[in-house]
């Protein structure tokens, strides 16, 4: 089948998509956008988090056909050209990135949190990021990054 979808503000289409393919597969293997990651492909890790019509979803759980004529925003679409989004900048500065495989998903999840709640307290941050696994950092620096991003956005 053919899938037409707006990705990061651009109209895109993918041909010969097999019905069983996920949005994650289409992004990564057909549209050249491997930013969303494939750590579990079963909705457990959050590494594939993208916005679908402005709502964060696990791209691995969305069937390709479901995104027809809809809008997707991936981690690649967060920065403004060379200028990182404050969440991205904070992740680098706080040392929240080690292997970085969780990072794209966490960046999108944190970005979404701060849009909804500009100055979250720690329990709120933890709740918002509870669906995103990180195996490297123990999360302390990720919490630092979200606090820092909130401060940057507030500044």
């Amino acid at each position, binding site marked *: 089948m053919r899938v037409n979808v707006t990705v990061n503000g651009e109209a895109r289409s993918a041909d010969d998509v097999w019905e069983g393919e996920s949005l994650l597969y289409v992004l990564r293997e057909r549209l050249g956008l491997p*930013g969303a990651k494939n750590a579990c492909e079963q909705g457990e890790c959050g590494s594939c988090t993208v916005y679908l019509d402005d709502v964060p979803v696990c791209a691995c759980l969305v069937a390709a056909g479901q995104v027809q004529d809809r809008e997707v925003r991936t981690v690649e679409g967060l920065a403004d050209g060379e200028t990182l989004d404050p969440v991205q900048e904070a992740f680098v500065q706080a040392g929240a990135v080690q292997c970085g495989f969780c990072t794209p998903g966490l960046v999108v999840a944190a970005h979404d949190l701060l849009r909804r709640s500009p100055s979250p307290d720690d329990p709120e941050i933890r709740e918002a990021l509870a669906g995103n696994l990180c195996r490297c*950092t123990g999360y302390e*620096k990720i919490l630092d990054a979200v606090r820092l991003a909130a401060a940057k956005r507030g500044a």
Partner: protein
Amino acid sequence: MSQPVRTPTDLTSAVAGGVGESPQRPDGNLKVRGEFAYSSDLWHEDMIWGATLRSPHPHARITGVDLTEALKVPGVHAVLTHADVPGANACGVEQRDQPVLAVDVVRYQGEPVALVGADHPETARRAMERIVVDYEVLEPVVDAEAAARGECAPLHASGNVVRHVPVRRGDQSATAEVVVTGRYEVGMQDQAFLGPESGLAVPAEDGGVDLYVATQWLHVDQDQVASALGLPLEKVRLALSGVGGAFGGREDLSMQVHACMLALHTRKPVKMVYNREESFYGHVHRHPAVLHYEHGADRDGKLVYVRAKIYLDGGAYASSTAAVVANAATLGIGPYDVDNVTVDCWGVYTNNPPCGAMRGFGAVQAGFAYESQMDRLAGVLGLDPVEVRLRNAVREGSTMPTGQVIDSAAPVAELLELVRDRPLPAATGGELDLRQMPGGVSNTTHGEGVVRGVGYAVGIKNICFSEGHDDYSTARVRLEVVGGEAAALVQTAACEVGQGLVTVVQQIVRTELGVQRVSVLPMDTSIGNAGSSSASRQTYVTGGAVKSACAAVRARVLELYSRQTGTGPAEVGRLGAELRGGKLVSSHDVLADLADVLGGDAVDETAEWRHRPTEPIDPETGQGNAHVQFGFAAHRAVVDVDVELGLVKVVALDCAQDVGRALNPQAVLGQIQGGSAQGLGLAVMEEIRTKDGKVRNPSFTDYLIPTVLDVPPMGVDVLERADPHAPYGLRGVGEPPTISSTPAIVAAIRAATGLPLTRVPVRPEHITGT
């Protein structure tokens, strides 16, 4: 053949930040933008997909394989079996005892049997369903203790014992006034790195292959791949792709040979990516262990003797079991000074999943047992658990059970005091916030039945390779003028797996050569061996190699200066010339601009560097200077336990660790906190559960790793007691915090519940007794 896309690029940073500072990672921006090229992101316009058919049985004879129907599936390019392995059908990181593809017997569930290359992953999956393998199912060997005693049918020609290491020190029949015994169990933990096993193999014009892959050790992979393909080393070129974590689980081969076989057979680039379920079958795990301990002490709690028998289940193939056994044995009594020691450790073959390297590597299993014993001893004597440890703690100059004298800092007592003296977290209470309760927003308790407990532990880990291993790394450093400014380039084959080695090597070059702009080349096998990114060794060994290459570059620069200015070498030496801030300086003067000295020349030096040698241990007594350095960490855990439901909330997990010298303080914290969290996972959540050799929970739905709700705030005290033998005095950081975290948490749960709790992970039913 054209180049694949999404392969790693040079990482260049032009910022301040030498040794001891925390400059940003050179790959950080790429990673937060989603543009860092991981091995599962690799892509080639002509590529096909590889897939692996695996055994459903833990132990079976293969009586027939029929590929006919699979080959008929449209879109299938190849279906391969052991008969298609071009070279030696044998791999293994220490012993080559594992077939690339099974021949006539399978020894674990998930063992690779056949390969498919197809135009789409789904095509490959459908073709695999049509491969007919006839199995004659055999009784699996699953009891490690029985295997060690020789009571099971041998799974390999050498029998079922991979290695037995005895350690004997002092009086073997010592007696003591106070004796505590215990039997402990450690479940099988998974590394659970997030980036799945993956890579791309591209057939080359010369009949060789270029393999882009996520691994921990390029050269040991290259050796095995070349031997399996029957190709000379130079025809098998490996390049590191972005690695999504490792923790030991990438030390053995996964898809490396398989992708290359398919690529050479089809003459097409082949991409392989495991999904999470396959990943659980596709790499080795932490050895599950059964540990029997007896501690004898005097009335003051001073240890008189320790006796231990440790059984490590290595599963179907050797992997790094032999080295894990040596660690568990030689570090088996912990960081304690004991005159009389009898330890025996066995690593055995069974039909359980193969086990090998995971962060902590044998020291974790022993650590849970010896720390549980120290608490038991404290309990019997009515002593404070920290006090009993302080009375026995090793220090610099202490002798290990192997006879090895600890010849640099060993501030074990101080680490324990640091965690003990940290303020305790406030009691949960006041306004009810379910998120702070055991059970969380499941709303299982509002505080009723919740008891708090505090526990302590300390651990010891060897740093770098041990037992006489020729442990070295290779680094190339090039210095030249770029855009009017002196800039450096550094190349190694040392795998960046997330730990931040790329940052550290840049820092070393800045410190040594006084330049800001440093580029790190992608890692590949075009340069010499760097050894593995394991054993907490890369900053030590590859750091040492980079430092040494910088020294060679500096010497050449001084030669240039000497020649240009006619200053004799002796005179240059007397000036104490150094490279700083892009200049050549003496102790009180600027001698020259580095860019002027270099002019149009590039100075390019490669150095091989090894740490001081270690010795093998005596096979009868375990005596010998087997280790190059020891690392120590201590933890204090605070837990709230809902004793009615058996739910545990870890409230605080503070750590103190001696790192010798923190080359990058931010990265050091990241290692300590990440390691502590993995220890938390082993304490209360993580276990690959097997039944009759079959894995029951190969998914992140059923194998739980800690989320941000499970991991508490982690305060860290970092000590910097320089080790004079190590570059910059550093001490390997990655593993020690993984060792003491687990027993500290279990000690806290015991303190809260009064239960003996002799097995990790502690599950709710262990607490409720139901």
